[in-house]
């Protein structure tokens, strides 16, 4: 007997221990007991591009409550994550319902290269979250133009004073006239009634007499006011057709500062037509959606402004899908940069051929909130634009254009465009003759030496940039 117990007791203990261990592992679900920190890392690396741990739909359903929905099916869930199609092939009714419900909308999830242990970490993170750790408040280094102006204490232009003066002068004139009128009426009544008339000089007469007595002072002041008005009038007339700093309201409060400064999105991502078209192009709503399908809330205006994109394109942020047969609405942006109809301007010529930086003409756009026509002072003040050509005339005026065409230098040798033009010229005899005579007679650099090769830097003007027909036809 003793021998028997001696033989079997260790085995019994071992098997019991194994049994307990085994049952413990089955009782503890994979939704708990993992490492939340590791889980968060893994989640952000593998899952976060489509899933959220809340019930919010990103590019696929949110994962909140996954421990309830998959209760007791840990093996299957691991399979579903590692290889969704294999899990679907098991014929489990819940997996089947998921496939029917979601795959047509969101597509199959790719096979995820995560081990069962890592899935445990991830699912623990999904269940428990990261304990609501507050996001670290980041210092806003992307101030808008308005904020910088306010910080510099320059706020809005103070043009209130001149109106107070104008209104004061008008009120004074009205008061004096009214007093004169009342005096005349009183005198007329007195004359009718035979009472004595107030013969003393009226206000106007006394003023005239005063002015005559102080004629030097009055004439100097008058001259000053006259000059001031003439200069003001000249300035007002010169402002006609000058739209510097024009900043119309826009249907969506779009901030260039947060898109360009904070995230450094290339100008040509949204204005993609600038490289190959006359127009820089206003992005259509689908371009906004390339990011805002996932980013549903902004730091400044919350969901309000981004919801306008969804409204225009017909996107349901709750399900993360586009509404079918939605009648899309245009976003009616207001045009900021207006050239007269009789001016031809082509973006691609300046962006692709000349290789200009957008900031050369559009200024520090990364500091603007809604679009604004840069002033020439702002453009000149930039120090982050290599080869910035400093100009003096107001932006979008003809003086500004031709000033730049005079100063800007074209490196013919490094431009495929001019190489192509040159090849076209030299491909036939007439062109060659024309080119030679043009080079010999017309193109002389500052020292008067004739220009005889493409290895020369010319100004746009020398290449015909001042020909009327280049821009006006």
């Amino acid at each position: 007997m003793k021998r028997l117990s001696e033989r079997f007791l260790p085995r019994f203990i071992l098997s019991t221990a194994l049994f307990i261990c085994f049952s413990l592992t089955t009782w503890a679900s994979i939704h708990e007991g993992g490492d939340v920190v590791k889980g968060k890392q893994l989640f952000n690396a593998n899952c976060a591009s489509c899933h959220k741990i809340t019930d919010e739909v990103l590019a696929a359903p949110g994962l909140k409550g996954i421990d309830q929905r998959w209760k007791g099916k840990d093996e299957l869930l691991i399979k579903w994550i590692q290889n969704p199609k294999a899990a679907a092939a098991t014929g489990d009714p819940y997996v089947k319902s998921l496939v029917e419900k979601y795959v047509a909308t969101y597509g199959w999830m790719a096979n995820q290269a995560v081990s069962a242990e890592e899935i445990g970490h991830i699912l623990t993170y999904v269940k428990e979250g990261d304990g609501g750790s507050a996001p670290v408040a980041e210092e806003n280094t992307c101030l808008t133009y308005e904020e910088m102006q306010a910080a510099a204490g320059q706020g809005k232009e103070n043009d209130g004073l001149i109106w107070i003066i104008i209104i004061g002068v008008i009120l004074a004139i009205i008061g004096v006239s009214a007093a004169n009128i009342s005096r005349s009426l009183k005198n007329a009544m007195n004359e009718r009634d035979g009472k004595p008339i107030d013969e003393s000089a009226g206000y106007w007469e006394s003023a005239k007499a005063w002015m005559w007595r102080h004629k030097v002072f009055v004439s100097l002041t008058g001259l000053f006011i006259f000059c001031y008005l003439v200069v003001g009038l000249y300035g007002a007339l010169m402002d006609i057709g000058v739209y510097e700093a024009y900043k119309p309201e826009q249907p969506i409060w779009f901030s260039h500062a947060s898109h360009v400064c904070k995230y450094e999105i290339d100008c040509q991502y949204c204005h993609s037509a600038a490289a190959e078209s006359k127009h820089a192009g206003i992005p259509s709503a689908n371009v906004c959606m390339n990011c805002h399908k996932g980013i549903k809330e902004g730091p400044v205006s919350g969901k309000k402004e981004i919801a306008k994109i969804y409204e225009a394109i017909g996107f349901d942020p709750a399900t993360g899908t586009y509404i079918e047969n939605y009648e899309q609405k245009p976003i009616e942006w207001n045009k900021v940069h207006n050239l007269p109809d009789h001016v031809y301007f082509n973006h691609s010529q300046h962006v692709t051929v000349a290789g200009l930086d957008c900031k050369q003409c559009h200024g520090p756009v990364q500091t603007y909130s809604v679009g604004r026509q840069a002033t020439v002072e702002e453009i000149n003040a930039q120090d982050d634009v290599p080869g910035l050509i400093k100009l003096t005339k107001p932006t979008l005026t003809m003086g500004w254009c031709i000033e730049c065409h005079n100063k800007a230098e074209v490196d013919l040798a490094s431009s495929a465009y001019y190489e192509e033009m040159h090849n076209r010229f030299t491909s036939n005899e007439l062109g060659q003759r024309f080119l030679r005579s043009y080079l010999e007679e017309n193109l002389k650099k500052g020292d008067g030496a004739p220009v005889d090769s493409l290895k020369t830097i010319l100004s746009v003007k020398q290449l015909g940039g001042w020909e009327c027909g280049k821009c006006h036809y």
Partner: protein
Amino acid sequence: MSRTLYTIATILAVAVGLSACKTDPNSPGVEYMPDMYRSPALEAYVDYGTNDYMDFTQSMKDKAGFVPVQSRKPAPGTIPYVGAEMAPFVMPYPLKNTPDDYERAATEIKSPLLSTREHIEKGREVYTKMCLHCHGEAGHGDGLISTKGAIAGIPDYATKLKDLPEGKIFHSITYGKGLMGQHASLINKLQRWQVTEWVKCLQQGITDPKFDENGMLIKPAAAPAEATTAASR
């Protein structure tokens, strides 16, 4: 007396006239010859009737029957005419934006381009403009949009998407994948294939591509079979 009234009237008129110039931020200011600003021919991005300031006269609008037109797509199946060299790149893409067609793209869609210096450098240029802010300079999914926390989990080309076939890359750029939107309206088919060539470099961890004397990409020794197929294509 009447002279005084005239003075008042003139000053008031001047004041009103001046105040009309600058107070409304939605007004661009005074135009010389306003009719020279308005093209009778239809122009892109000109407002034909929604903004009071950028407006045609009512009679002109009535004559033309303008309605606000924006965000119009070309008719389905439109083939742009952009010259003979671009002909292979303007034909409609045969696959649809469905999960099944995404799988089909892996085998059915092959790059028409060789891995040449020209295409890879162009692709890199387009990648810098179009993809970098999310996918990062070396394609590790570490663009500023990702690192600043706006969109998380952008996959790394060099690890997670290392074996993604070029057809699927192209399909994803064309229609989008997951959270990424479609980029077919931003870059044409040639540019998409060029970006695909550059992404293929990033998949192999090549950030500084080297080219042989024929301008072909020199691939790392680990994948010589791939190089021969690309060259023979």
